[in-house]
């Protein structure tokens, strides 16, 4: 039995979230739209209609290339990729071939805590195709998606496992979301993956036959297809067989890859420069401006949170997962710079705020109170003005009505009782009402103190400062 290592390269197609299509002014939105509602002579390929490049799509692709540490090429040429398929009305797709916008990049990924660099071969721009629906007696063609800007990111064959592929794709998605260039929603087709996989014996440098797996439309499909292919090819080779050079698809229902095309009927695309489009010759000043506009990316953000605020790796990763959440958190820390610790803010953010965001499904932008009010709430708890439970109640009010935390504290009378005289009175009453637990504590049953503190909290309707209450109880019971 030979042990094999997988050599994996990925091609990821990402739909850009522009207003209009790549080469015409039709709206680029297609998800859930009535069929053929966003078409024009250009994207229908009517004779004489000419394409014009969408400036924003070029900027989004260059921005992605910059985030992936690519070289951005000033001179770019679009090319025709020729093939016949009903979802492609022109009979060719406008893509980039010899002179793509971005090349020679790298993405650092983290897999199970370990770092790894995946080379980026190229990032280029092309147009999406229409949608086919297969019905009995024919196939229906909807061209709303035909001509929507599509960015293709091709990696070097640096990936070695399903887990690495999963990390690569999820970190790519996180980056395009940070940049705001794509929704990255795989379930809506905004991101589609292809895997090129071959095996090599661990003690050899000779790679086996490459198999392509297309149409991987979820993270799970990426992981499962790779796991399946590694097992299938290993079994074939160990049984003395040969891996055929084929294009496969992923059958989600059966959980296995299926052959779509063999080498014999491979496409012959006959690329040539698109004569209808003059070449791009980008202004280097504009490329520099784009580079300056790059936001802080998630990995850098997480590293900064750990270095500056001593947050755990787990908290830093959670907080930076989505850019809007990270920015809300940072604004709260800045607003509460003199009153709260970043760690306290991180706890409230990853706990209460994330829970409420996830439960309600609303966006950070729709939170009804500003980060400064959130910081104020945390300060009220941290300084002991209200206790933690009251803090959660106040947050509930803020969440629902957007009211200011101090106003809610005043209106609900939640201000914590830290007056020692008032607490003393309640403590005396609690000890009198609970002679048995008091006696047990005096006899050394330490755990009973929790029950007694609870009684004090109940009597004060949650307003007593629990630390002061416990101290007073201990003092009284010791005397």
């Amino acid at each position, binding site marked *: 039995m030979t042990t094999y290592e997988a050599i994996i390269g990925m091609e990821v197609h990402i739909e850009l979230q522009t207003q209009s299509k790549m080469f015409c*002014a039709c709206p680029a939105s297609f998800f859930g739209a009535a069929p053929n509602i966003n078409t024009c002579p250009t994207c229908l390929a009517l004779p004489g209609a000419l394409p014009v490049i969408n400036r924003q799509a070029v900027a989004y692709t260059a921005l992605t290339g910059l985030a992936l540490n690519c070289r951005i090429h000033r001179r770019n040429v679009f090319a025709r990729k020729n093939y016949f398929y009903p979802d492609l009305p022109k009979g060719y797709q406008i893509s980039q071939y010899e002179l793509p916008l971005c090349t020679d990049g790298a993405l650092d990924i983290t897999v199970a805590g370990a770092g790894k660099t995946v080379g980026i071969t190229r990032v280029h721009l092309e147009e999406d195709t229409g949608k086919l629906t297969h*019905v009995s007696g024919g196939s*229906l063609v909807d061209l709303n998606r035909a001509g929507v800007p599509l960015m293709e990111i091709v990696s070097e064959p640096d990936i070695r496992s399903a887990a690495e592929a999963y990390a690569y794709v999820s970190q790519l998605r996180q980056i395009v979301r940070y940049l705001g260039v794509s929704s990255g929603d795989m379930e809506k087709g905004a991101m589609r993956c292809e895997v090129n996989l071959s095996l090599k014996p661990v003690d050899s440098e000779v790679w086996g036959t490459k198999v392509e797996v297309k149409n991987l439309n979820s993270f799970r499909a990426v992981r499962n297809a790779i796991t399946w292919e590694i097992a299938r090819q290993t079994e074939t080779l160990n049984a003395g067989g040969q891996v055929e050079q084929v294009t496969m698809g992923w059958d989600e229902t059966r959980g296995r890859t299926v052959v779509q095309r063999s080498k014999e009927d491979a496409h012959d695309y006959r690329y040539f420069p698109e004569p209808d489009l003059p070449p791009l010759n980008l202004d280097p000043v504009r490329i520099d401006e784009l580079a300056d506009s790059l936001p802080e990316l998630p990995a850098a953000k997480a590293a900064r949170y750990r270095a500056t605020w001593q947050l755990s790796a787990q908290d830093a990763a959670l907080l930076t997962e989505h850019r809007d959440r990270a920015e809300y958190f940072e604004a709260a820390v800045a607003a509460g710079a003199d009153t709260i610790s970043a760690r306290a803010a991180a706890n409230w953010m990853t706990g209460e705020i994330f829970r409420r965001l996830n439960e309600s499904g609303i966006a950070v932008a729709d939170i009804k109170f500003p980060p400064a009010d959130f910081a104020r709430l945390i300060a009220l708890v941290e300084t002991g003005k209200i206790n933690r439970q009251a803090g959660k109640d106040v947050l509930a009010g803020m969440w629902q009505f957007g009211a200011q935390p101090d106003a809610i504290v005043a209106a609900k009378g939640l201000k914590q009782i830290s007056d020692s005289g008032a607490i003393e009175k309640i403590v005396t009453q609690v000890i009198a009402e609970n002679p048995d637990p008091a006696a047990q504590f005096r006899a050394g049953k330490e755990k009973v103190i929790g029950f007694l503190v609870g009684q004090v909290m109940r009597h004060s309707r949650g307003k007593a400062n629990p630390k002061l209450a416990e101290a007073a109880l201990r003092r009284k019971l010791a005397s």
Partner: protein
Amino acid sequence: MPKLSMAEVENIAHLARLKLTEDEKRLFQEQLSSILRYVEMLNTLDTAGVPPTTSALPLDNVMRPDEAHAGLSPADALLNAPDTAAGSFRVKQILP
């Protein structure tokens, strides 16, 4: 440049989805070969100092702002369609 082989002509016809008779194949074999020989004259020129040209237009960087406008109505979009169903173009069954 030798004459295109019959297999090459058949492959080109297949890529263009054309069904040619034997006579047509021989006709196009001659004509395509003649076109290639004509274009091949360019190879006699010294192009050492000429940058690769992908467009003959004296233009570059023609782009438009990302603004969406309504295009054709679905009814107009489908006007030339040989067959339609459910607001879509209908074509022969394509196996998924």
